[in-house]
């Protein structure tokens, strides 16, 4: 399977999408929309990071499984 079929979409998705995600995170932190000094907001910070890693991990796992069955 060619690169454009496997890892290129993944890199693009979490590269460009990742930029949007990181900019969003920086914006909510810098504007104090999310305040890590609040216990509840701190939990949300981890949920947000977890969500990003969860989807990246899920996509990577399926790509590896598909490549493995080639």
């Amino acid at each position, binding site marked *: 399977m060619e690169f*454009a079929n496997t890892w290129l979409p993944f890199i693009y998705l979490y590269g460009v999408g990742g930029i*949007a995600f990181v900019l969003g995170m920086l914006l909510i932190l810098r504007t104090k929309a999310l305040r890590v000094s609040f216990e509840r907001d701190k939990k949300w910070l981890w949920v947000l990071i977890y969500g990003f890693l969860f989807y990246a991990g899920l996509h990577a796992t399926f790509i590896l499984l598909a490549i493995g069955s080639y």
Partner: protein
Amino acid sequence: MDIAVGTTLDRYVILAYFAIVMGFGAYFGKYSKTTSDYFFGGRRFAWWLISISIVATGVGSHSFVKYSTKAYQYGLSSTMTYMNDWFFIPLFMFGWLPIIYYTRVRSIPEYFERRFNRTARYLATMMTLLYMIGYIAIQFLTLATALYRIYGIPLMMTVILIAIATTVYMHFGGQTSVIFTDLFQGLILIFAGLLLFFLGIQYLGDHTAFSGLQAFWMNLSPQEKLPLAHFNHPPDFNFVGIFWQDGIAGSVGFLFLNQGLIMRFMAAKSVNEGRKAAAFNVLLILPISAIVVSNAGWIGRAISNALPGVLPDGLAANDVFVAVTNVVSAPGVFGFIIAALCAALMSTADTLVNASSAIIVNDIYRPLAKKAKSEKRELELARWTSIAVKVIAVILVPFFNSFDSIYEAHGWFHSTFTPPLVVGVFLGIFWKRFTAPAVIATFVVGAFLMILGQFIPELISPFSHGIELRPGRGYTYIGALYNLVVCASVGVIVALFTKPDSEEKLYGLTIFDVHKLKSIYKGSPVNEEKGKNALVKWKVKDTDNNVIRFSKSDMDLMKALPGDLVYVQDSRWWLGGLKSAHSTFGEPHNEDGVAYINSMHLDHGQFVEAYQLKAEKEM
């Protein structure tokens, strides 16, 4: 190709389903006393109720046909559009959601007036309404296309009957009915979709050398197992085009501009409950929904690979959902799964109808009405406009029926109406420098450049990422990138050449003020001291003020002070806040374990004497 049209048992199952939903929805009409109740459900519901009801809103009847088609053609990459929504979740949860909730904005166009001016509001109203009513028409068409083959009733008559069925429960119930029927329909959708997957795997296990999930996995090719499509090929299904059309424009459009979704979040009892609903939905429910809407196509592909001849030769990809359902399920079950298709239609349509009606009352009627009208009159108007919206949607059905496919009609909508609104709302929230002339230019000039791009596809070529230009048909998804760039460019250029708005005008309307919104909402300093919830009995004691009074020790337990905001609900958690009310803490009394409410709270909350109330300090 001739495909099954069901048995008599299937037809009864579908009819029974319609009857149950209509009765279920009409029952909740008693909870709609005001336009706030009708449109926002009184801002009282728990996160899990909001979250599951959103499933039914997001999964339309077109979803089953659309995604199972792509799943049959390309495999697991059909899930892409359901798995790329997390990137904008931080900005939604901590930017947009608190802004709309705490500023008490009732609609997206109203935000445009507060943030920009009335012209921006009217332009946004027009575009939003066109988008939503057209979307409703597409939903009617999709389901009618399936049902008229089963019942043999002419297509337009089927459309009218579906419109009447959804009217029965929506007319009286509004948002509360929508939420509860969507909760029911969401569960039906998920169950039916997963049942189909289970039956499909069982079928493969019974007819191939493998068993269980292995039978499914081993009968897909490696390419069909990939979760993301090829980067830029073929033109009608490639990763990069779908990323820009759905992952960026679609995600922002859905989270920030879908009036139906926004109203659902505004029905949450608090911003934090809305955040929980959003997180749960995107992290758990969306991946499940992706399986629900796609699996008929995957099973169909695995059957075609392993057992040639089982599915009819020359099966059109669009027919795979019905064909696979027919192969793997028994009579009655087929009817149940088609009933799930009905659930998808009704739940998406009811949300959009309620949202359209909210916009007509809030953004057309109220600004134009010379005198303020009574709640009763506005509620009546809201009910009748929801019927008018459906009538217009029914009239539009033949227009959409003229497109080559429902998929194409749906895509045309997204690419035409979403980008200017996406740019307008996004820059409005996150860039203080964005001005009223800039947003109007985005709508008008941006829309013109978008239309130009449709006629001259070469304009889109620099953004194509190597996707092939199809002669006579242009680009499909990657046009969204061009549309976003031209709209944003127009907006940014005009903004830089116009005078920025004052800080006073923008107060509370951008992400930069989110940390002040709670105190704006409350009207006094916020009490952030963490207390415990109190379980209390209640008595009705009418007073002049809209307050609920607790004993001194109960207020100490909640760390509450007079003037703080309080939320009381029936102590049965599974009601999800249906019986609840918001109010303000009054001066304490001396009767421990008892709350003094007034008749307005009782009327709104429909509390039952035998059950205690759970009280919590909001802020």
